[in-house]
């Protein structure tokens, strides 16, 4: 945790955010969420604002490799962390992340608004399952996780798709899971 150099009466801070491998120095009103910092101050508009209340998952990004709703995290709290957005998931050479490629291949979207959140969420979710984190859909709380359709649905339930593209979102994630070593 970085020490913050404000006094109790300052309502903004000079802060440093590390996003997709690049450090950014910003002065931000403390009210600024990470979501608004990304979109309005850093021009990273891939991350979407849906409900702005942590209910829809459109704003999902990775903070220290973990998926979070960036609408509920104040930017000032994200100092000292490594933030990854949909713009940073692709390979350095511009090649698509396997989940991005699978979403294209499976046509796992209609309007696409929830897609960046779905993909960031799925990227972290695959890691959680590989690490053996159980879910409410797990048959065993101690064994390795078998990432079947019910498990994926449960683990992705924080990401809503109003177009109802769930069938193909599930298929895309299953494709990547099967290809994973």
């Amino acid at each position: 945790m970085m020490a913050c150099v404000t006094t109790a009466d300052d309502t903004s801070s000079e802060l440093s955010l590390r996003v997709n491998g690049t450090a950014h120095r910003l002065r931000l009103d403390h009210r600024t969420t990470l979501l608004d910092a990304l979109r309005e101050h850093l021009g990273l508009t891939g991350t979407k604002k849906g409900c702005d209340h942590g209910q829809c998952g459109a704003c999902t990004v990775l903070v220290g490799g973990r998926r979070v709703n960036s609408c509920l995290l104040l930017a000032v709290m994200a100092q000292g962390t490594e933030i990854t957005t949909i713009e940073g998931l692709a390979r350095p050479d511009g090649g698509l992340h396997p989940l991005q490629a699978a979403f294209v291949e499976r046509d796992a979207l209609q309007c696409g608004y929830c897609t960046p959140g779905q993909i960031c969420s799925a990227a972290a979710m695959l890691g959680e399952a590989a690490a053996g984190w159980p879910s409410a859909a797990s048959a065993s709380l101690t064994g390795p996780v078998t990432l079947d359709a019910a498990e994926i649905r449960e683990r992705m339930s924080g990401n809503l798709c109003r177009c109802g593209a769930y069938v193909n979102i599930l298929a895309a994630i299953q494709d990547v899971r099967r290809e994973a070593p």
Partner: protein
Amino acid sequence: MRPFGYLVPPDPAAAIAAVTGRPGATFLAGGTNLVDLMKLGVATPDLLVDVTGLLPHRIEPVPGGGLRIGAGVRNSDLAADQRVPGSGCPARAGDHRNLAILGGSPHCVATHPSDMAVALAALDAVVHVEGPAGSRALPLGELYRLPGDRPDRETTLERGDLITAVELPAPGFAARSAYRKVRDRASYAFGVALVAAALDVDSGVVRDARIALGAVAPRPWRARTAERMLAGRPATAEWFGRAADAELADAAPLPDNAFKITLVRNIVVRMLCELARGELAGAAS
């Protein structure tokens, strides 16, 4: 949202002093609840004191077989720790699924939606608090309060009190336990009725029972009337039903949620029957 200051104090004592000394100050931890309440104008602090980095982040065994869970442990890590009873169960699903339920209304009728607190109530959790007056430990049942004439206050914590850890004592009996959550949709939703239950049965007789109910009262509800009634009684659906009825006899539902009494009664009876069957089958084999 009202403008606010932000402080990262060097240690818990400084954090407690910062909040104690300023009426508009409040602790900031995960933030998923507080930030949302601030967006809605329900919480209007003028200073956030970030304790995220100050709270213990470890889960440690304590003498006697219990576990001490640092208040800084993320719910996702807690759910993944196999030493913790019920890791992975729905009581811990979703670490950022919080919604505003309490307002300043004098007619506050919100039920407490937490899953984890219900499981903790059944497990006899002890909450460790540091505050301006020093350290203390209190049973979970003394942490939450009923609204009374202060519906804005959900807990008995005073200004500057900081929860530093939750301790789960070793269960006093080798019980089978379960958690059941009934909700409007299959995932990512608050429960309509929640039950945490543990049952110790010997030769068809209940030796000990623990039952906690959720989403039916403004705080997690430990069903002590039912527990007392069941001790020494036959482990049968009839007695489970009688105990649930006794517990719910004084319930005061509102017109639109009266269904919850029948619902939670049926969940309790069914869970206890299932636990009893498992226990009996286990003993026979």
